[in-house]
């Protein structure tokens, strides 16, 4: 059995549209210092550093090498991970393996993106085949339009329910000082927001943000001496998807089983999670659009097919609800892409520590699922627990 791994330090910046006051190394340093403070450790207590970001948004080749001083990596082992939208979560997984291997007692995981450096859509579109669809494709809106369209047709969900989901995310974000977009929204505001591709409106899509998030992982021995209550990463699962069917519109005509179902089935089975809505207290999904929330609630087996919008209508997913989802406000409120995967794990861990402050869920939170989504439906997920 591998070493058990816990989160003992959490630090993130206030994620904003633009950070003209600092450079990216200073932004990373801000998150790292906060994580060290949180864990009451110094950089010398860190054995290895795992860092991730998506290169072409800031245009730095080997961007990890440029932030060694600010990230505290000098003369330390470490490496950089980049798996697209799931990069942050893949970096946490990499940190987990490093500590689980018993070669390292502690690992610092840093996710960051500074999207004030370039036009983000133009960088995102370079994820497409240059000889096929790169010069026509335009970002991910089409995926979520397809998702929303088919979900409404199959489940009877109406536009108002997705608007309500967005309002709930805004309400949560306003209670999270780190969140980027924190508007005071009503369902009507969302329904009046400009249509990008029906049923997806501007407010349904995530912002481009600048932000960094750092986690400190430790093995059982170190975690038990930690300043704060350790949050255990009990299990993790990754499932990517073949790319060939996701040319262009990222829509698969005969959708085979989704990566979410495959990854969650495996993880649930290994951990005896038979009724996710009961066994998991809080969820931090990575939903770049509020339209993705419904299909994913069902694919993660929180509820049966066609029931997700009803749970949202009953507002069960609120911070005070019985199935709180994305109490941090989620990716639709905050999306520094390289950091978003780490932020999901960080926010879930804050909930299990009971330290989420104003956006702490009301129910007793002992277990959590944090996920990341990227490329075309790649998924990385973690099962976190307050108890060993």
């Amino acid at each position, binding site marked *: 059995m591998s070493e058990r791994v816990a989160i003992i330090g959490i630090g993130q910046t206030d994620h904003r549209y633009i950070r003209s*006051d600092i*450079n990216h190394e200073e932004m990373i340093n801000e998150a790292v210092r906060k994580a060290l403070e949180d864990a009451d450790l110094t950089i010398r207590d860190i054995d290895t550093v795992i860092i991730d970001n998506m290169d072409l948004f800031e245009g730095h080749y080997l961007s990890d090498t440029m932030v060694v001083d600010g990230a505290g990596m000098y003369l330390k082992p470490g490496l950089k991970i980049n798996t697209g939208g799931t990069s942050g979560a893949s970096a946490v997984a990499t940190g987990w393996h490093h500590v689980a291997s018993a070669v390292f007692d502690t690992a610092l995981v840093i996710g960051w993106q500074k999207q004030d450096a*370039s*036009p983000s859509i133009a960088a995102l579109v370079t994820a497409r085949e240059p000889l096929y669809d790169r010069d026509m494709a335009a970002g991910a809106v089409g995926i979520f339009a397809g998702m929303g369209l088919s979900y409404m047709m199959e489940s009877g969900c109406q536009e108002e329910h997705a608007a309500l989901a967005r309002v709930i995310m805004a309400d949560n974000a306003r209670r999270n000082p780190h969140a980027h977009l924190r508007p005071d929204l009503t369902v009507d505001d969302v329904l009046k927001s400009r249509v990008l591709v029906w049923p997806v409106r501007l407010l349904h899509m995530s912002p481009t943000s600048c932000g960094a998030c750092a986690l400190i992982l430790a093995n059982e021995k170190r975690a038990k001496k930690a300043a704060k209550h350790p949050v255990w990463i009990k299990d993790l699962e990754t499932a990517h998807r073949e790319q060939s069917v996701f040319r262009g519109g990222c829509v698969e005509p005969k959708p085979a089983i989704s990566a979410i179902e495959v990854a969650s089935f495996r993880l649930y089975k290994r951990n005896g999670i038979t009724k996710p809505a009961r066994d998991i207290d809080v969820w931090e999904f990575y939903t770049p659009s509020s339209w993705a929330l419904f299909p994913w609630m069902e694919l993660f087996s929180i509820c049966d097919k066609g029931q997700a919008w009803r749970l949202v209508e009953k507002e069960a997913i609120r911070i005070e609800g019985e199935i709180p989802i994305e109490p941090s406000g989620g990716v639709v409120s905050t999306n520094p892409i390289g950091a978003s995967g780490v932020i999901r794990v960080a926010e879930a861990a804050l909930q299990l520590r009971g330290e989420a402050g104003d956006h702490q869920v009301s129910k007793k939170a002992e277990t959590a699922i944090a996920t990341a989504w990227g490329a075309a439906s790649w998924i990385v997920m973690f099962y976190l627990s307050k108890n060993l």
Partner: protein
Amino acid sequence: MPDRKPSKYTDMLHLITPSKGLNVLSLDPYVAEGRLAMPYRYFPGPIATRFFLELRDNQRIMGIRCPTCGIVYVPPESTCGTCFEKLEEWVEVGNRGVLQSYTVTHYTLPVHPDHTPIIYGLVKLDGADTGFLHFLGEVENGALRIGIKMEAVFREERVGNILDIKYFRPASS
């Protein structure tokens, strides 16, 4: 100085020449020429901003000292890599220093400035503990040797970036 608003990427597009798109070079094997051209804008942050403003306005080269290990970094950085200390103690260093290394580059790249020859050097300025990477200029053949004295030459029009220094030349004794 009024605090200028950050530019939008559309303000930078004049720096990139537009092109048609894919250009098929051969059909079998199929090869087509394509492009990846992005306008990137970086905010220097407080430390580098102060350094650049001193170059621009006072033709002065500033370093920053780490309170723990005492190292004076030129150019300055925000965090001492060795001690992970936040750096705040500014030190003025001279415009002259000792040549630590040099090389003449014999090929040109679109990212090179338009002057030739392209000579790079590392100069440890008097009062600094680190090497300063820049161009060397006004160099006769064979004049460069590690250890000789160099001095900074500033551009007339300075805009607040590393190129406000034109190059380092062998110091007139």
